[in-house]
């Protein structure tokens, strides 16, 4: 069944900012959907509309079978985890967890069981009587998650919950969030601008740009079949190469060099090529490539350079000998993605 239906939702802020311009997404039961996009694309706004912290200008939000547009956040059966944790500083961890339940007039015995359950699950039982100021960033984040869990909500809403943590802790917490969500089987929306986070966490990714959905799909779909140049260059690190090319039907031409390539489309196109799909080749066939800079990242090496006048990056195993000067590169025709030059939409080949 579907937990959440966002139907053609729009948001215009009182100051005229057009933050969300008609978005429709469904979140299935137990599914973890990640909203990803650059800063200012409206992901937080969309999430906050689901939470009820922001009014909906147009469209409908249906949660667990009822329209919640006009409901207060407390009446929607959602739980939210904020970037800066937003724990109540003067309350102990225990009181932080219990506060929402107490306001709902939950019996004390029930509160106690739920709090100790959540504390057990998140391994914060030993901190229950501490104040948030006496906890580390990671522990605070756990408490924030505990506060969401005790509510037994229909859906969890995360707004960049890990961006205040250092890189190592972030990886660890990311994994824990995923495990936790799997275990509780509760639907969740997770907002981030970090595409690595999106790829590793999501059941499905919603890529947003300028208040609109660019693409919805599983991480694998989004990675290998981006619908637009925006998605193609946003997802994946290092980003996909974007080159100006021309197709004739039988060949693909980049800056005067061409290879045989059969495609129905002919004319100027944007050509996308993942760095890790490009190989250095020996012999005649392939594109002439001038190496400019090498970047060693440990296991892989990035080779920056250009074909004619166009910048291009390729990734290779760091064990291979470092290339230099003028070399030849090649790729499989299957790995080439073509996009319409004007609209950025994918041209299916």
């Amino acid at each position, binding site marked *: 069944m579907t937990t959440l239906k966002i139907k053609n939702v729009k948001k215009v802020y009182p100051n005229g900012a057009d933050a969300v311009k008609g978005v429709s997404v469904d979140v299935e039961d137990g599914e973890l959907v990640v909203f990803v996009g650059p800063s200012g694309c409206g992901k937080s706004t969309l999430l906050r509309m689901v*939470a009820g912290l922001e009014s909906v200008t147009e469209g409908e939000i249906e949660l667990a079978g009822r329209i919640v547009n006009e409901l207060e956040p407390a009446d929607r059966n959602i739980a939210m985890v904020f970037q800066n944790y937003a724990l109540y500083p003067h309350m102990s961890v225990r009181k932080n967890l219990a506060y929402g339940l107490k306001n709902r007039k939950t019996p004390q015995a029930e509160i106690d069981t739920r709090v100790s359950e959540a504390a057990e699950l998140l391994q914060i039982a030993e901190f229950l009587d501490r104040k948030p100021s006496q906890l580390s960033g990671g522990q605070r984040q756990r408490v924030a998650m505990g506060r969401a869990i005790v509510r037994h909500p229909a859906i969890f809403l995360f707004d960049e919950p890990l961006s205040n943590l250092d890189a190592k802790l972030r990886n660890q917490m990311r994994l824990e969030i995923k495990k936790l969500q799997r275990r509780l089987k509760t639907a969740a929306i997770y907002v981030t601008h970090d595409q690595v986070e999106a790829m590793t966490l999501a059941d499905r990714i919603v890529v947003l740009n300028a208040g609109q959905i660019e693409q919805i799909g599983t991480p694998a779909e989004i990675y290998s079949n981006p619908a637009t140049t925006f998605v193609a260059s946003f997802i994946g690190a290092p980003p996909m190469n974007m080159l100006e090319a021309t197709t004739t039907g039988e060949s693909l031409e980049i800056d005067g060099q061409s290879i045989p390539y059969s495609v129905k489309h002919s004319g100027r196109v944007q050509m996308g090529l993942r760095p890790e799909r490009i190989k250095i080749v020996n012999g005649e066939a392939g594109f002439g490539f001038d190496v400019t800079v090498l970047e060693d990242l440990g296991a892989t090496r990035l080779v920056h350079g250009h074909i004619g006048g166009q910048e291009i990056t390729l990734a290779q195993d760091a064990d291979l000998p470092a290339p230099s000067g003028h070399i030849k590169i090649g790729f499989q025709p299957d790995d080439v993605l073509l996009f319409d030059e004007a609209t950025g939409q994918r041209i299916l080949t």
Partner: protein
Amino acid sequence: MTTTELEQSASVPHAKPAPSRKTFGGVRIYDHVVLWFGVFLMMAPLVVAFTTSSFDHVLIHRQGMQFGWGDQFSQTYSTVLNQQGGFTGEVTGWLMTQNSFILGIGFAVGKIVISMLAAYAIVYFRFPFATLAFWIIFMTLLLPLEVRILPSYEVVQQLGLLNTYTGLILPLIASATGTFFFRQFFKSVPNELLEAARIDGANAWRFLIDILVPLSKTMMAAIFIIMFVVGWNQYLWPTLMTTDETYFTLVRGIKQVMQNMIGADIPKYNEALAMAMLAMIPPVAVILIFQRMFIKGLVEQEK
């Protein structure tokens, strides 16, 4: 803090103490000369007033202020506290102390409650002309009690509140300064806290009581200190407002004692001074007690 602690903490930023500073047993002489001079300026009159209050009033009248220790101490102070004075003979030192407390505490608590509610409305509720309302409140700083004392009196008199505690306190508790401080504080509270509370099902009232009030403890202590002392020392308004002697405060009582110069009587200087000393104790005590809380709050930094 002891002087050595002071010395240590002061010398942390620069590893070597500046060589030009003369130190004596770890104490910087010049700093302490200045400090002690300040202490002397502030304390000397108090000490003299205190010692003088232990002498007989006839002696004081003849020889002026005294530095030694007289034999009238306990008698003077018990007279001041217990003797029934005034025209009606109903008012004692104890009663005046009680009135002063009612005024001081009512004044401080009233100001805190009113300014907190005003700031809460201004910061958290969207109503038309909220900013304008704030600036109007702020502008009342330009109209202290002395400026509006006649209309204030008129209003209180019309309401029939002369010679009541309500009349004494109520017209004084609107506070632009307090509202301003609370407004600044509320604005610094992260918005997510309000949102988390909304999701947790707290209504506006619960958010104020459960979240904002505990977070403002430090602010409230600070305002309480200042306002209690100001309230305790009120003179003009109580003088105007209360003609019934049972509402007199200590500060007014001091003057009352001096006025006993009826006929050939020598004024009871010792009693006036004793009363001044007594009137000083509660504000000093409040500052000492709340200062601890105040500093503790600052150090713990809960936000």
